[in-house]
């Protein structure tokens, strides 16, 4: 599904990713862990097409297409979703209106018929039930005045409605208390399927207590330095990232 090879990227003239390679197959959940400054968020931003990230070497193939050649909206329509570390507040834009516009824009790009408001409402009701969140969020402006937990849950809710093939969760666990973390994890687990893959970028192991990954990778200094199963995360939790630099020294 996703094949990243020897990816190099720079931000503001500074090299951040320095030869990252990673393959994700359908249905797999990969956790990317690493210390601050390792390039975790840069990876998410490069994959979703944010301005200001310059890819200097390497390739990213998503479902047979050159992902890096696509505009952000084309990546979304192709099935890539980024759950933001800091979801943006957009005053004046109603959450429901925005989500329907986004879904229909994606469907249009894929040559699928757009949903009318009745069809969309039906879809939203189903997803609300799965996510166990109240419809009160829908009537507000996008993320405006949301608490940290509400913002993250709104990201997962958007993911549920947009049904991406690849979901990238950028530090979705950061800033959440344990109850909010459980709710977010429950949402993610509800969306796991044989066709949908996840890339969970996180600093801490605790999200992985609730969403069990198939693979854990350690990102340090712009490269994946260690890969393993979920026990790798536990080892990191116990010994800290310093253990890695010693092990690699």
């Amino acid at each position, binding site marked *: 599904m996703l094949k990243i090879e020897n990816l190099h990227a720079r931000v503001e003239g500074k090299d951040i990713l320095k030869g990252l390679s990673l393959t994700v197959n359908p249905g797999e959940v990969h956790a990317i862990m690493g210390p601050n400054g390792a390039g975790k968020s840069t990876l998410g931003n490069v994959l*979703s*097409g*944010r*301005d200001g990230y310059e890819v200097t070497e390497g390739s990213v193939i998503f479902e047979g297409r050159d992902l890096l050649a696509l*505009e*952000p*909206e084309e*990546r*979304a*329509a192709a099935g890539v*979703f*980024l759950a*933001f570390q800091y*979801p*943006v507040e*957009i*005053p*004046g*834009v109603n959450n429901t209106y*925005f*989500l329907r*516009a*986004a*879904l229909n*824009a*994606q469907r249009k*790009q894929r040559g699928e018929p757009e949903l009318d408001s009745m069809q969309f409402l039906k879809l939203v009701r189903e997803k609300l039930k799965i996510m166990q969140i109240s419809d009160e969020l829908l009537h507000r402006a996008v993320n405006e005045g949301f608490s940290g937990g509400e913002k993250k849950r709104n990201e997962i809710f*958007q993911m549920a409605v*947009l049904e991406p093939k690849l979901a990238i969760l950028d530090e979705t666990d950061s800033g959440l208390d344990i109850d909010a973390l459980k709710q977010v994890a429950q949402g993610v687990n509800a969306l796991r399927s044989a066709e949908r893959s996840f890339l969970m970028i996180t600093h801490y192991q605790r999200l992985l207590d609730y969403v069990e990954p198939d693979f854990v990778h350690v990102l340090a200094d712009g490269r994946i330095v260690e890969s393993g199963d979920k026990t790798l995360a536990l080892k990191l939790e116990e010994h800290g990232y310093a253990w890695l630099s010693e092990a690699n020294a």
Partner: protein
Amino acid sequence: MSQSPASLPFIDGLRDAAGLRLPGSGLAWLDAARRENLEAFIAAGLPDTRTEAWKYTALRALGQRRFALGDAAAASHSIDTHALKLPGVDGPRLVFVNGVFRADLSRLETLPPGLTLQPLSQALESDPEPLRFALSRHYRETGDAFARLNAALAGDGTVLRVAAGARIAKPVHICFVGTAAQGDVAWHVRNVIELGEGAKLDLIEHHLSSAPHKHLGTLASDIVLQNGAQLQHVLLQNAGEDSSLIRRGSLHLGARSQAALHVLELGGALVRHDLHAELRGDEARLDTRGVFVLRGRQHIDTQLSIRHQALNTASESIWRGVADERSRGVFRGAIVVAEGADGADASLSNKNLLLSALAEIDTKPELEIYADEVKAAHGATVGQLDERALFYLRSRGLPQAEARALLTAAFCRAVFATLPNETLRDHFSDALLAHLP
């Protein structure tokens, strides 16, 4: 100070204006007022940018143009009446084409009790005396050039009166249609509107274009609200993209009267909108909301002047500006709380959005307070679309242009939120989105 008037084609085009036969010609007081205003206009010419009120709007190019004194064929242009329609609006309608009243396009047959509505051209023939006060004015400020020109040459317009206590249910729709004529025409329209004590009126002023033209329209409105009257005034300005439109509104509010103005400015190449509002009676309230959305090389200059002159008056003004491509927007909002107008509550917010590096917006809020126990707030900003928000929308699948339009419409939304007519609110929103490049 002004450009040397006589040599300007604009002024030269007025050579035969003194001999023009207009509705009401022959009334001694009107002839005198028209003549004196014309002479004053020709003597002073067009204001230049050294005149404070015209600092950001240069009239050099306009001064080089020559306009016909009127459109002789205005009564016979064919106009598509579908274009005049606004959703949910089906009450009385007055239509002017290139400044001339058109009975065939208007709807004046069955007026509700308490409403007097007729074109100025007819009122001047049948019953001119009540108009004497409004039409005899002289304008003395240098910046008042177009008020003089309008007073000198306006032969048509709207005369509207609502009797004391009458509450008019359906909005009165006044359309100004510009259409192609033989050459470029200058038309001048005068509206005299009065709401009696406790009267209530919804008024829609609608500017639109039927075929490409480069006319100049000037419009002067005197609106008086007697004690306790209520006015909802909606202005939808979608004039021809090459046209020039100069509007001047004067609004007097009596005790406990309330006026709400909602403005959407989309059209025109050169547009000037002056509003002089005076809160003359205790507890009068004025709400103004407005937005302009500019593209191409459009230039729109809005000048708001609100004077609080009585006890416990309130005014709230929320204006937004959006400028794309090479357009330029100007906003000046001046609030004066006069001596003795204690307990006034005045606020003014003007926020602007630049969508292009070549666009420009100048904004100047002003506040002068000479009274006690006054609550006043004002602020102005000029900014750009939030790049983070733009990326957020695109990452969810919205194409760039759609994401920009969505954010721009959201930026303008505060202006329409208070518009009571929901159908019209949606229409405003659609018209705004359609105008974005």
